[in-house]
């Protein structure tokens, strides 16, 4: 019994039942399959993180954001600028309590190099209804390339708790046909 010392004092020498051996082997192989699936996806899958990251500071990062807004603003959403950066170009997304800044307009099928950083706390970039979720840290500039493949209005929810206005934090990304 499991609550008494093993009856067989040489328990490590007793043979193992066949179903157990088979299950151990199957589980182990399944672990390998899952391991290689991740690697396979890095080679052939279309959704991977580049993991390109730079150290930054709130000052340096907001300077880049402001520069982008200055150059590419096309209109505004209740005072928040909407920018339309050139296809293939850089998009600087800034998170701070409690807004995503600025709003972005993209062209369907084009690739954009997105940068993410926070001015203050950690925030969570949650693109809806696509459902892509990234952690945004202050002090780190995270870079990855998105290729929006459907047009429409998308929302950016914050899904890392960032204080009492956490649920107010809602940004917009518009994807247009051209």
């Amino acid at each position: 019994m499991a609550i008494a010392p093993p009856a067989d004092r040489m328990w490590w020498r007793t043979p193992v039942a066949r179903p157990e051996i088979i299950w151990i082997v199957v589980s182990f192989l399944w672990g390998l399959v899952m391991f290689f699936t991740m690697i396979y996806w890095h080679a052939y899958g279309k959704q991977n993180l580049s993991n390109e990251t730079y150290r930054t500071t709130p000052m340096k990062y907001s300077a880049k954001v402001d520069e982008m807004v200055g150059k590419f603003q096309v209109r505004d959403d209740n005072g928040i600028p909407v920018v339309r950066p050139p296809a293939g170009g850089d998009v600087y997304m800034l998170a701070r309590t409690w807004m995503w800044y600025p709003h972005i307009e993209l062209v369907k099928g084009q690739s954009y190099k997105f940068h993410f950083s926070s001015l203050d706390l950690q925030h969570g970039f949650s693109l809806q209804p696509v459902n892509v979720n990234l952690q945004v840290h202050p002090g780190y500039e995270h870079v990855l390339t998105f290729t929006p493949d459907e047009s429409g209005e998308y929302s950016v929810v914050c899904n890392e708790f960032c204080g009492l206005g956490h649920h107010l934090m809602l940004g917009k990304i518009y994807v247009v046909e051209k």
Partner: protein
Amino acid sequence: MVATPESLPLPAAHEEPRFRTCASTGLKIHLAAQTLIKANAVTAVVFLAIGGLFGLLVALTRWPAVHLLPADWFYLVLTAHGLDVLLLWIIFFEIAILYFASAVLLGSRIAAPRVAWAAYALMLIGGLITNVAVLQGGSTVMFTSYTPMMAAPNFYLGLIIFAVGALVALGVFFGTLVVARDERTYEGSVPLVTFGAITAAIIAVFTLASGAIILIPTYLWSLGLISMPDPLTYKLIWWGMGHSSQQINVSAHVSIWYLIAAVVLGAKPLSEKVSRMAFFLYILFLQLASAHHLMVEPGLSSEWKVFNTSYAMYLAVLGSMIHGMTVPGAIEAAQRANGYDKGLFGWLRHAPWGNPAFAGMFLSLIMFGFIGGISGVVLGTEQINLIMHNTIYVPGHFHGTVVAGTTLAFMAGTWLLLPLIFQREIIWPRIARWQPYIFAIGAGGISLFMMGAGTLGVARRHWDITFADASMSFSYPPAAFLMMGLNGICALFAATGGIMYILTVVATVLWGKRIADGQAVQLASPKARVVTEYGSIEHPKIPGTIILTVIFFVAFVLYYYVNWKYLAEVWPMR
């Protein structure tokens, strides 16, 4: 009957340890250990009551049609919920289990009972300090308290004191193992359940050390003495505590599964070697899995993520997959030996489903595997994490592990502790009998519906998914609202099951009929007849378990690849 075995040397400078012999199990129980187990278990239950109430309030707020609490209270109560259940309920109960698995199962005196009381006091004081800090309102930072968000200094101080107390209690546990060995209170190797408890304790040392490494500087920072710990480093080390402490829970509740199967059905592990190796895998590999909380974090390479989640995590998952077969396998073999050997599932149909210890244990086993286990592996897959990170899928997953799995198993274990350690008859057996089912429906339900809503993108720790007060407008799909409503309904079931548990336990402890020292209680379920030949060691007859295992495996593989398919549909990114 209080027996004082002459064979035991007297511990210097202490009064002679007093023992009683349990008439039901024949175990020799050190009375000081027994009192400590009672104190830790009762304290755990009190924190479950408080934390569970907070959980209900949170779930009712997240039920869109009810939306109970205002925003500031919601976030405060959510912080308190995580702390009280995950930390205080679980760890106090685990300390009780550790004392039980060392002193009681080995028939030994507990080492240094006074130190154990000091540990208890530290844990209690620490827990209260942190609770007060949270309830005062200045520490609404969630139990993860990610920097740069800052809580009141007492929030961290309480956690540190609690951790120190828990470390001291672990010291008493290890000390008791040494005492038992030196005083030869048992023959051969320690029992499997004790082995599992040792696994839990070793992981706990690592966990608490990580906690200290990160919380002490954070405390000093909150006092303004040092500069802020880097948020990414904080997270990495914090999860060294936060994740590995979940492995303490797994080791502890798997030990409880074996314990209940042994006490109620007389089940023997199919193979001591395999079951112990599976525990050992936890020690070797689970610590590293802190990586799977950092999948979509900047600044960490994919190689690091893949390595740490596969090599490390899958070998630990292997441990759980092994237990997932050997526990039902042991039960099937025992039931067949007890005479229930008709057909594939006669052993399961005739299992003691009316015994809450068994019912809770088996439901915990099934739900931990199918809900918590599978979703955990999927969630921890580097790329799939992109479509789940910080959505309410995450709490869905861990309510499958730590509520439907650990909490339900601990509840089941309590139904044995009451007669054995508290020496009380369960006061309302009919309520106890239904409790595991009601709680399981609730716990399984909240897990599944939160997972469902998370798949639709709903954020975790979020007060308003309608975004009524935001300057822009957005709303999740109607199905997500439905899921959150169903989650609220299941929360009512979970809360009902929780209240049934708490009231019955408390009433039993206070007013249950006393079981006299020499009086035996019926714990084992009746046998149909004793079958001596039901297979051999090499070929145990466990066809039912094999079928269950195949069903589990197919579900796992399908669900895993379905999520890859979901991932393949989102915006391409690199």
